[in-house]
């Protein structure tokens, strides 16, 4: 290779301060939740899993999935491959969060009322969305040509976001018509102030973590695409 000024110099590796801050925040959440937040009367200490479970659900289902859907629509409109990378990264990081939700759900359920899985509406919806994101990532893996891959993924992303309300509706309708074990609502409103504060702190910590992971994943995708471009030009 002739030596020439590199039009795309690789950035010098720097410590990821955002990620560090996010991890500190998550650690802080654990400390706060375990040491400084009161124990819930009915469920006992196991209730504290809520601070991870519900917050991950919010980040994974609404923020990650929503970002993926918006990036998909924008990609089909603007054709900017950066948007495709955002969608890809958001889907992957979102999948991690959803996995956490699906992992903590049964743990909580088993501890509280002795059943691993109760087909709770939200948990079931999360399960289906998990499958959809897996399908999304598999589709990306199966298409080799980058332009086509981005287009296909964007189409699936948009259709998936149209599917979400139908999944919610169907599961909710199923549950209201079928008596099922009463699930203690894993959401904020009925919590005393102390717990609410921990909850929101947790939410912020996980959002911060999401942003950090998203950025790292996005950078990885950018480098990967850069390498692929170079290979195409010189290969």
């Amino acid at each position, binding site marked *: 290779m002739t030596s020439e000024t590199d039009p795309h110099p690789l950035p010098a590796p720097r410590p990821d301060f955002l990620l560090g801050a996010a991890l500190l925040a998550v650690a802080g959440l654990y400390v706060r939740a375990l040491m400084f937040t009161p124990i819930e009367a009915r469920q006992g200490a196991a209730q504290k899993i809520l601070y991870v479970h519900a917050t991950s659900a919010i980040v994974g289902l609404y923020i990650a999935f929503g970002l993926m859907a918006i990036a998909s629509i924008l990609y089909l409109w603007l054709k900017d491959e950066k948007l495709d990378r955002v969608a890809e990264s958001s889907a992957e990081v979102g999948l991690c969060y959803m996995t956490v939700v699906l992992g903590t759900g049964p743990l909580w359920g088993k501890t509280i009322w002795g059943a691993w899985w109760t087909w709770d509406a939200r948990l079931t919806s999360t399960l289906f969305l998990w499958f959809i994101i897996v399908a999304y990532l598999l589709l990306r893996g199966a298409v080799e*040509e*980058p332009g086509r891959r981005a287009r296909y993924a964007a189409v699936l992303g948009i259709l998936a976001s149209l599917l979400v309300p139908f999944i919610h509706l169907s599961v909710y309708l199923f549950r209201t018509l079928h008596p099922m074990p009463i699930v203690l609502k894993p959401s904020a409103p009925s919590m005393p102030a102390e717990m609410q504060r921990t909850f929101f702190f947790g939410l912020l910590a996980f959002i911060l973590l999401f942003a950090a992971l998203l950025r790292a994943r996005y950078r990885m995708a950018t480098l990967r695409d850069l390498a692929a471009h170079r290979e*195409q*030009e010189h290969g």
Partner: protein
Amino acid sequence: MTSTPVLRADGLVRSFGGRRAVDGVSFTLGAGECLALFGPNGAGKTTLLRLVAGLLAPGQGSVHVNGVSLKAGAEARAQVGLVSHASMLYGALTALENVELSARLHGLPKPSEAARSALALMGVDDRADTLARTLSRGLQQRVSIARAMVHAPRLLLCDEPYTGLDVAGSAALTEVLSERREAGAALLLVTHNITEGLALATQAAIMRRGRFVRHETRELLDPGSYHSEYRELAGLP
């Protein structure tokens, strides 16, 4: 009297990934003209053809067929016929059904009759009711050509159409193409066979790395030296 050219390509650019397959191509074809396009593999000839056929959208530039931009909608493709080295046939349908389908998709009032006469012109009407997948490669090519011409297109795009044709088939093709030209159609002929290409051409161009490195009218070039000039320009040994 200036009439609208059958085909006008302006500044066509098309990339795949980082690579420019077509890198700024412009040319015009009037009625009765034929552009023979030569070039080594990978020069971008097929991509250019697909751009002109409306199968690919250009990254930059435009294509106008009979004055109508291809971007304007599906109607603009009505006057285009495409022959490529893939047969574009449905193996499970008969030769007649394949050509009839094309006739119907172009809105011809009597699709069966048009299909039969198209097959007859290419000398395959006796195989009209044979399944396409049981036909030999050469016969499939003839059916494919009939399929491309059944709607009497004003612009014929041919990508290596002589591939797989025997002597009789080649003769039939050349006759049909000349007849189309005389009827006022324009041809864009991509071929490796310089002799065959020059026989029909009114213009000749050599494409390399997405660009026309040479483009002139037929009268100006000397067939004798063209072969060696082509090899040089195309970067062939």
